[in-house]
């Protein structure tokens, strides 16, 4: 990861965001949670808000934020301190994701991928040697990681993957390709999921300079424009056997990582929703039409009232899920429900908020359309909205709609 400086034009618009807590959920949070929220919110206001419109406009990734995210402690905050993590609980992790996504979903993606999809599997399924080799450097941002599960022909159905490893002495030979991989073009390491000769999914740590490995960038996204996405291409890549994650076999490996990341997204979406609501609430009081603030019209009030209601419900869902996660009791199906509900809620709020902003809502004077475009991807990645409905469906009926 080369050293990067912020570039481009700084926005003149001040980030006036204020949190919203209609049901006094703050009273359920600890001092650590409140301090973490305050710190990340300040960091976002200082580092993300002034530059993000310009970066997304230019479809460039603000690489310098990796360092800042590491410094603030956003990479693996709930992993143990001895590996460079923060030793915090799951609610703190959720709150950090909420505040990052309040600024920009792609900045939250940077942290989700690094923490939940790269550091977490190495911590949970890696050898002690792998933990010591990679985790501190990933936590400090010295190394950037990516997570390769999705393939060009296997998205919602990862079990169909064709990327594979074959034993060759003290190496595995890795072949195949991954698609839509966040951060892959700038990553130093990739946690890649591939099938072994028996067809069992295994995780391998691939390093960027291994011959036969390339990571071309995918261009042209209208969503998460300031987040870099790419492919992973493996042509007879020789991966030392020491790089296989020893402690997991099967699809539950990648799926348990996704559960971690989805949990963070369930919180993150609340951040994006609050930003859209906050902007709409302020705009509705400042914008005058027919001689009065538009917030005085019943139809605007209906929109605002529904927004804060949905945000409050999502907050309670996230808080309860966080409490279960702290007790080690949050099931993948419960996490799936919160991801689906909260992202969908945020996208609906972004759309309504865009309407309240009128024509202005379509510009980069306000954060709303940017959130809306980002949330379209958030609705799809980490399991599409529809796939999550089927997960709940399977959980409550016992009948599998996938097979």
């Amino acid at each position, binding site marked *: 990861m080369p050293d990067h400086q912020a570039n481009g034009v700084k926005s003149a618009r001040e980030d006036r965001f204020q949190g919203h807590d209609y049901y006094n959920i703050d009273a359920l949070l600890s001092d650590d949670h409140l301090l973490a929220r305050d710190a990340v919110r300040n960091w976002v206001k200082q580092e993300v808000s002034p530059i993000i419109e310009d970066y997304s406009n230019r479809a460039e990734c603000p690489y310098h934020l990796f360092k800042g995210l590491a*410094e603030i402690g956003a990479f693996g905050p709930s992993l143990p301190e001895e590996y460079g993590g923060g030793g*915090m609980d799951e609610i703190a992790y959720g709150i950090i994701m909420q505040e990052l996504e309040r600024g920009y979903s792609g900045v939250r993606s940077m942290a989700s991928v690094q923490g939940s999809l790269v550091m977490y599997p190495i911590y949970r399924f890696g050898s002690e040697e792998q933990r010591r080799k990679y985790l501190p450097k990933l936590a400090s941002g010295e190394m950037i990681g990516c997570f390769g599960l999705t393939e060009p022909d296997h998205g919602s159905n990862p079990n169909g993957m064709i990327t594979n490893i074959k034993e060759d002495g003290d190496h595995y030979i890795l072949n195949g390709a991954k698609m839509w991989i966040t951060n892959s073009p700038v990553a130093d390491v990739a946690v890649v999921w591939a099938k072994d000769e028996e067809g069992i999914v295994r995780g391998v740590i691939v390093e960027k300079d291994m011959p036969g490995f390339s990571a071309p960038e995918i261009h042209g996204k209208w969503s998460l424009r300031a987040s870099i996405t790419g492919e992973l291409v493996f042509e007879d890549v020789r991966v030392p056997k020491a790089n296989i994650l020893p402690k997991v076999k099967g699809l539950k490996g990648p799926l348990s990582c996704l559960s971690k990341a989805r949990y963070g997204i369930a919180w993150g979406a609340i951040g994006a929703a609050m930003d859209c609501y906050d902007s709409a609430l302020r705009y509705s009081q400042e914008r005058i039409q027919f001689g009065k603030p538009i917030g005085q019209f019943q139809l605007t009030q209906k929109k605002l009232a529904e927004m804060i209601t949905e945000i409050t419900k999502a907050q309670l869902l996230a808080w309860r899920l966080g409490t279960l996660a702290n007790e080690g009791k949050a099931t993948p199906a419960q996490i799936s429900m919160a991801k689906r509900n909260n992202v969908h809620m945020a996208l609906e709020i972004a759309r309504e908020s865009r309407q309240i902003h009128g024509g202005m809502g379509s510009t980069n004077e306000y954060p709303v359309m940017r959130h809306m475009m980002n949330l379209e991807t958030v609705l799809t990645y980490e399991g599409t909205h529809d796939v999550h409905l089927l997960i709940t469906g399977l959980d409550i009926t016992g009948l599998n709609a996938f097979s």
Partner: protein
Amino acid sequence: MKLLVCVSKTPDTTAKIAFKDNNSAFEEDGVQFIMNPYDEWYALVRALEVKEAVGGSVTIINVGPAANDTIIRKGLAIGADSAVRIDANPQSAMFVARQIAEYAKGEDFDAIFVGKETIDHNGSEVGAMVAELLDQPYISFANHLELDGKVATISREIEGGVEVAELEVPFVLSAAKGLAEQRIPNMRGIMMAKRKPLKVVPPTAFEDQAVVVSYELPPAKAAVKMVDPENLDELVRLLHEEAKVI
């Protein structure tokens, strides 16, 4: 260097201000509190920078009830080594200054930092009172501090220029904008703060001589008057007769 930083709690700048008990007390219900920015951004951070450069320790002190521990924890998360809370509900600057001076007497601090004012009462009193009670020199509104051994060079802005003072430790200074730059605590700091000592000390008895009788809100701002761009005479008349600026 053994440093003491006085930190207080103030309502967030966006808080809605209201009074209770016949306008004699501030309504704290529903108000979000923060660490006073002059204490946090300038006094505390500069003290930490001094410690990082020459070694020593930074202690933060607050006079207030247990609810203030959240703010104290933030100071520890930013980097202070230990904290002291004088367990009382302060009613005046004099009360606060007494408690701080009483504590500091037994501790031999090389310097005591306060913020130039709190953003609620804007009293700018505590620092000067502490200095007086400890019989130490006091520099207010410091925006630059250099230390060379025991000698401090401190600048402060004055009308139309800068005043530079040189003095030896121990001293008390009040911190103004420019003395340092805000530091955002990181997650590691927040977790470490839990393991740092926070000592709760009972207050020394003290009779306040001044009592706040009442508070008032400033008069509501009058609405903006729009003047037709064609009607310059009316603009001149309003500026002259109503605004009285020409």
